[in-house]
């Protein structure tokens, strides 16, 4: 078949796949949230509410598409499009199976992009423009606050995100996602997770923050910002923002699996050597299974952990994640330079983690009494006014 045709087919498949997956992920998330909160969840449309995503989609389609009078119309319409476009674009270099040139189906839209990881980061950080423009164009203080937060947050977390992946690039000597998997596909002990556990943690946290999901959804918090940047959006445009968020979750789950958990590799039945009939599909299945596990974990985290305060969020990025990620890169460099055993990386990661933990306990050894005690005279007002 003509390669262009195949590519188009793949694009169609991926688009349909991710969009469908998104709507059903929302269903899964709602059910999971309901289970966690001892509720029932959607159960009215179809058996077990299985048709709920379709009903929701229809509702979004058929709703009146309000564009408030006070918004900047062009940017207002553009920003959800940017959000969806960039998150979907990032997916083009993500292999969703054992990508190979000689198979019938490539399992990736753009094969052999040597800058794969960089491309993903570059494109998906563009997604913040959707948020910023959306908030700005809404001409609404809550939205503007939300988008300001989003920009600060995404820019801060970009750094640990990139830093944590550097270690993998150093280990495997490649930024190409297909190659990254191949490097790991040597056995269970080949997975990067064993050598970069700290980086994996940092990557995961930073990626969560990038996707603006709880516990990092500072830009759209219901309580203080009434939805933040999408306060003014409704109908399909809101759905697009929603879609972008979920696509982002899918992408970061794929990335986590591909970068740290061996992608499609699983010992015994999905290795680089396995070429029985249908092996490709098994690998696809393995990858999907891993990705789904990560997504479920992300959902669990969302319904478990309360939101960070904004200064805590920034503190986490600048005081904890960035130094740790940098130290991890240095550690990896040292191990590579002196050709040490790779398992030193594991040891080193744990040492780094412990060090960070002990530093956090009491950085300057200040005693408890002198630390935050305020003079009692500084309380002139009776009553509860000093409560916060």
């Amino acid at each position, binding site marked *: 078949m003509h390669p262009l045709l195949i590519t188009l087919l793949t694009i169609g498949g991926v688009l349909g796949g991710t969009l469908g997956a998104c709507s059903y992920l929302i269903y899964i998330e709602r059910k*999971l949230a*309901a*289970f*966690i*909160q*001892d*509720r*029932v969840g959607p159960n009215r449309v179809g058996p077990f509410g299985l048709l709920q995503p379709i009903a929701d989609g229809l509702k979004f389609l058929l709703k009146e598409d309000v564009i408030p009078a006070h918004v900047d119309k062009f940017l207002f319409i553009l920003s959800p499009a940017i959000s969806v476009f960039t998150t979907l674009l990032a997916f083009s270099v993500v292999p969703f199976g054992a990508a190979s040139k000689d198979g019938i189906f490539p399992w990736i839209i753009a094969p052999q992009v040597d800058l794969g990881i960089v491309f993903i980061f570059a494109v998906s950080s563009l997604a913040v423009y959707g948020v910023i423009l959306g908030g700005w164009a809404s001409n609404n203080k809550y939205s503007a606050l939300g988008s300001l937060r989003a920009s600060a947050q995404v820019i801060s977390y970009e750094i640990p995100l990139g830093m944590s992946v550097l270690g993998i690039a150093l280990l495997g000597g490649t930024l190409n996602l297909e190659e990254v998997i191949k490097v790991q596909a040597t056995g269970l002990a080949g997975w990067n997770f064993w050598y970069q556990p700290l980086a994996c943690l940092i990557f995961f946290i930073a990626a969560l923050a990038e996707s603006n999901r709880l516990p990092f959804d500072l830009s759209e918090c219901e309580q203080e910002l009434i939805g933040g940047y999408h306060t003014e959006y409704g109908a399909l445009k809101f759905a697009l923002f929603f879609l972008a968020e979920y696509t982002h979750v899918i992408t970061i789950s794929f990335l986590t699996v591909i970068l740290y958990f061996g992608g499609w590799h699983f010992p015994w039945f999905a290795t680089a050597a396995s070429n029985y009939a249908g092996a490709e599909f098994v690998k696809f299945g393995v990858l999907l299974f891993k990705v789904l596990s990560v997504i479920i974990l992300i959902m*669990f*985290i969302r*319904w*478990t*952990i309360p939101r960070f305060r904004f200064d805590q969020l920034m503190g986490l990025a600048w005081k904890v994640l960035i130094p740790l990620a940098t130290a991890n890169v240095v550690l990896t460099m040292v191990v590579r330079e002196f050709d040490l055993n790779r398992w030193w990386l594991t040891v080193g990661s744990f040492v780094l*983690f412990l060090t*960070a*933990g*002990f530093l*956090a*306990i*009491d950085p300057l050894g200040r005693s*408890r009494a002198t*630390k*935050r*005690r*305020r003079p*009692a*005279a500084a*309380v*002139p*007002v*009776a009553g509860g006014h000093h409560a916060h």
Partner: protein
Amino acid sequence: MPIDSKDVTWVEEPEMGFWESSFLPAIVDGLKTTLKHVIKYEPTTQQYPEEKPELPQNYRGVHRLNRDEKGRVKCVACFLCATACPARCIYITAAPAPKTEEWVDRDKYPAKFDIDELRCIGCGMCEEACPVDAIEMTSLYDLTGMSRAEMLFDREKLLSVYDKTINSGKDPARTTRGRLGPASTMVTPEVIAGSSDEKRVPVQAVPEPGSGGH
């Protein structure tokens, strides 16, 4: 006056230990809790249209206007409820009772009695205020309507709510108090003869404090 400094107790936020500052154990703990709920799944939700809620007797749902033992509207148009209503949603037009045999023991009755159920905040002040327990709130909670006009309950509608709920077992008339007072007794003593155990309230007197409750 400022608080005396010796009365002020400063509470410091507790120092974080190693594991606490790494957050991980807390996160794992939280995940365990949520996971436990998923595994031992016991929804506490009520599937509403299929399962009806069990409401307590003092639930404050739709109003009703009670009937007296002759089937007339019990309300004496005293305006106490309309005065007490914080939402100002009770509109009463009082009129002298018709000069017929049926109304011979009554001076005054509500020619019109409207409650705007949309404005009502369900506070129950009206039933607290009523000296003859004519207005009561029922356990009907699923109050709906297609228009605003429909939600403006007039006297007949409120009486029909009484007819509907009085024998449902859920909304018994809450007190037997509030038969008409001695002023009407003088006209037809036999009317209240059946309630000689009742404390008779002189017409001029306000109900004693606290007697409005149930």
